[in-house]
Structure formats: C-alpha cells, structure tokens
C-alpha cells in the first residue's frame, strides 16, 4: 500500500549491464533516487546512462540488458517483478514516456487526430464519436489552437513543436501518474520549447504528476526542474536542487557547468572537462 508520504517512485541501487559478443558494459551502476510529485532532471553527457535509466524503469531495454535493483517501487508495485503483461498495463496507464523526436513515435500513415483517438479507444473501448471528442479536447489541452484542423493533418504536415504536443496529448489520455521525458525538447526552437515545457510544468502542478526529465541542457534544467541528478559513467555523482545547480561541488558537475557558454557571462575561453577514474565510486569495469 502507498501512503501519502511515500514517494511516487523509489529506486535503490539500479544496475544495468549490457551483455554482447563484444563484452559486458555496465551502463548504470547503482543509481538511487526517490521521486515525488515534482520535476526531477537527469543530466550528464551522452553515454552517461540517462536513457538507460529511463528505459529500465519501463522495461523497454533489449534482451541483452540485465537489470537489477534493490528497490524499484512505483505506487507500491515492484516494477522489476512485473510480468510483461502487467508491465504493459503500467506502461500504458500509469507511466508514459515522451521521446526526443515525435517523428519516430507517430504513425506516418494516420492523421494525428486519429492516433490520439485510437489511444483513447485502447483505454476506453466504445464509441468512435466519443473518442473523437476526447481527442479534440486533448489537443486543445496541450494548447493546440485549431484542434479540428490539426486533427486531420498527417505527421509530416506538422512542425516538431506541434508533433511534441500531439505526443503529450496522446500520453495524457490514460491519466498517468509518472511521465518519463527523454530529451523531449532538444530538437525544438527555444520559443516552442518554452511552450512545451509550460505544458509539462502545468501537468505536474495541476494534476500532481511526477516528471523525470532527461536532458543534457544544464541551463534549462536549472530553471525548470525542482531537483537534478548529475550522472557520470553510469553513476549519480551529485544531486542538487535545480535552483542550486550553480553551487554544484563535484568536479565533474563543475566541469560541465564551466564548459557551457551562457548569455551575458562571456569568458575568453570555455573550460574543458576533465574526466577522472577516481570519480567513480566503484572501480571502473568498462
């Protein structure tokens, strides 16, 4: 049973090892965190294991990935113990994932409105007319101006920002409690990105969802997220409040921040990141 003080998601000592003919690769090495009804960022360079953490929670990793954890509890359920069937249910209903590029997630042969309506019918079998109404309402909920018009467009006829809003509309239909967003705004222009973030922000505030926001954009997570996990080589090297990201202490976090150009804070040269094996809490087995 969950009580109101329990976190929505509790992860302890999550490990993922990819096993292939080329050898073993420990992509995630003992990641632990709790998530409440808040926005939690996971940042780090590419290859640090951010996406692997997100996909491990949803059991979306390939068979070559061996996933273990001391705890991986969501709404009182131990996610790693679930059967594929039970997991599909959680995935569709309680946890949703948004990916970077909506183009790969939307069916190119179906109008975006039909796709949202179909998502509704999967969860609420029944009338087509009602599904259409609900789909239009969802499109409006993600601030799409003219839902009737957009309903009939194909994925290639809409912009990246619109595609991302359609993805969010689809994902909201089952009323999830947790959203895992993997670089959801990296491909978007700054003004469109701001609007997509506002939609996610409002969902967390108004519906009390939990959001895991995977990103490599430190500047953005600083102002957008409540808490930030900084990953290096499969481990969380530091955890901070978003607003206190600039006060990060770990040399890796400091290095990442210093390598970033920032508006109004120009330096002659950007710092170049050092990477030290001793930053790894356990011996490097890569």
């Amino acid at each position, binding site marked *: 049973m969950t009580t109101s003080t329990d976190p929505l998601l509790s992860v302890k000592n999550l490990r993922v090892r990819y096993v292939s003919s080329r050898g073993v690769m420990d992509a995630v090495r003992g990641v632990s965190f709790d998530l409440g009804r808040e926005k939690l960022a996971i940042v780090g*360079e*590419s290859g640090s294991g951010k996406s692997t953490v997100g996909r491990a929670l949803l059991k979306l990793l390939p068979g070559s990935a061996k996933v273990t954890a001391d705890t991986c509890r969501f709404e009182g359920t131990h996610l790693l113990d679930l059967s594929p069937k039970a997991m599909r249910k959680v995935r569709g209903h309680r946890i949703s994932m948004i990916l970077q590029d909506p183009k790969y997630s939307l069916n190119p042969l179906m109008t975006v409105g039909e796709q949202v309506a179909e998502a509704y019918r999967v969860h609420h079998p029944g009338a087509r007319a009602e599904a259409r109404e609900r789909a239009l309402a969802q499109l409006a909920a993600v*601030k799409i101006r003219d839902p009737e018009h957009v309903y009939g467009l194909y994925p290639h006829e809409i912009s*990246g920002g619109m595609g991302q809003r359609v993805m969010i509309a689809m994902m909201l239909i089952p009323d999830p409690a947790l959203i895992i967003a993997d670089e959801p705004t990296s491909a978007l*222009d*700054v*003004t*469109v*990105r*701001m*609007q997509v*973030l*506002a939609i996610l*922000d409002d969902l967390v505030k108004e519906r009390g969802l939990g959001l895991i926001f995977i990103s*490599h954009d*430190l*500047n*953005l997570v*600083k*102002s*957008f997220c409540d808490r930030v996990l900084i990953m290096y080589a499969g481990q969380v090297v530091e955890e901070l409040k978003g607003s206190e990201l600039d006060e990060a202490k770990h040399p890796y976090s400091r*290095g*990442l921040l210093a*390598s*970033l*150009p*920032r*508006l*109004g804070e*120009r330096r002659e*040269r*950007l*710092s*170049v*990141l050092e990477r030290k094996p001793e930053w790894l809490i356990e011996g490097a087995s890569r």
Partner: protein
Amino acid sequence: MTAPMLEVENLSLHLGEGTRRRLILDGVSFSLKPGESFGLAGESGSGKSTVLRCIAGLYRHWTGTIRLDGEPLAARPEKDRCRLVQMVFQDPYGSLHPRHKIDTILAEPLRIHGMGDVDRRVDRILTQVGLGPRFRYRYPHQLSGGQRQRVAIARALMLEPRILLLDEPTSALDVSIQAEILNLLADLRTELDLTFLLVSHDLAVIEHMCHSLAIMRAGRIVETLSRETLAHGTPEASYTAALIKASERYDRELAGVLARED
C-alpha cells in the same frame, strides 16, 4: 575604414517548383570586416543555412550582390571562390566520406586544386586541429563526434581560405565537446587570421564567438545587433527580446505570452 571581407547585399532567393515556389530569402544584407566573426541566429526554417549555401556557391539563382574580398562572387571562378571561402556543416557524420581514410579526405581538395606538398600540409593541418598525424590512417567511423568535427574543420582549412562558413558546427555535440571545438575555432581564427560567419540557434554560442549578429525570421533579417546588446538583453525588436529571454531560462509567464503570439 577597412574594406569588408564578405558583403551580402539585398540577397533574395526562391526555391521550389511551380505552385510550391516560395521566397526563401527576402533582401538579406550584412557585412563582415576581415577577422570579424558574425553570427546568424533565428528559428529553424528562417533561412540561415540557405544564406551560407548561397555564399558557398551551392545555389546560383539568387539575386542581389555577394562580394568576397571586394569582388562580386558571380565574377569569381569557382576555384578562386573555394580558396577564399569554405563551409563546415553541423553533422560530422554526414559530411565525411565513410569509406575514405582521413588522409584521402584531407588530400582531396589539394589534388583538385593541383597543390603540391600534400604530406606536409596534411600533417600540419592535423596538428593544427589538435589531432596529430597519426589520425591520417583512420576512417571517420573510428573517430568520436568531436574528432570528426575536427577533421571537417581541417578539410575546410586545406585550401587556406580567408572565410569559414560554420553551419551549427557544435549543435550535434555534448557541451564539453562543444567547448573544445569552440576553443579550437577561436584559436584558429587568431592563428590563421580567419573571418567567420557562424550559424547557430544557440544565442549563447553566438555571443561567445561573434562580434555582432543578425536575427533572421522567415527569410528576412529582423535586426542586426552587437555582442554587447545581446549580452545586456537590450535589442530593439520585440521578437529578438523574446528569443533572448526564452534562451536564458524557463519562465512560465513568458511561455503564456509566446503561446498567445504564435
């Protein structure tokens, strides 16, 4: 007054056929002094890459004037243009021939231009971009993203151009690798006395690299501003102000304003 190294005046271009024909660039003008770096910013589809493609000779049916070192582009033979201006693309994967060794990739422009001393030039440029001669015998897929972008920069420098057109050169890279490439470009600019035209959607990257910049929207220049104006966040156009604010931080109120405007 120093004469401009690159001058673009009233550049316009249509693309597409028949009913799909559209005005992509609409009277774009700016100019760069020798050694200056100029940025082009703006949302995707605003025409930034198209401006570079016109200057690099990839489109020829534009109207207006482009002058390189005082002489109209149209009057310069292609070989001449290649020795003055070279382009570096965003995607270090797509822009290098996958089955050619770095050696071949770098020697090719020299061969085309009948330039001798190939070995020494290739070694020197590899050292200049921080890779070193041992990289000659590798293939692009054996390199990291940052190393590939160094090779792309090396290739652009083989003919010793005066101007580099840089199209989102670090957008595909991690921030730490981006820092290395931006530092490299700044060093090369000083060492080789280069003039940069840099396209980026990231205003912080432009502020870091460029003396001044233009904001593009729908094929036009909305505003040309100095690095200082950008840094202080005091542009003239409200569109520029919104872009700057949206680049600085997440702001729920601003999101509402933007949503009402689009």
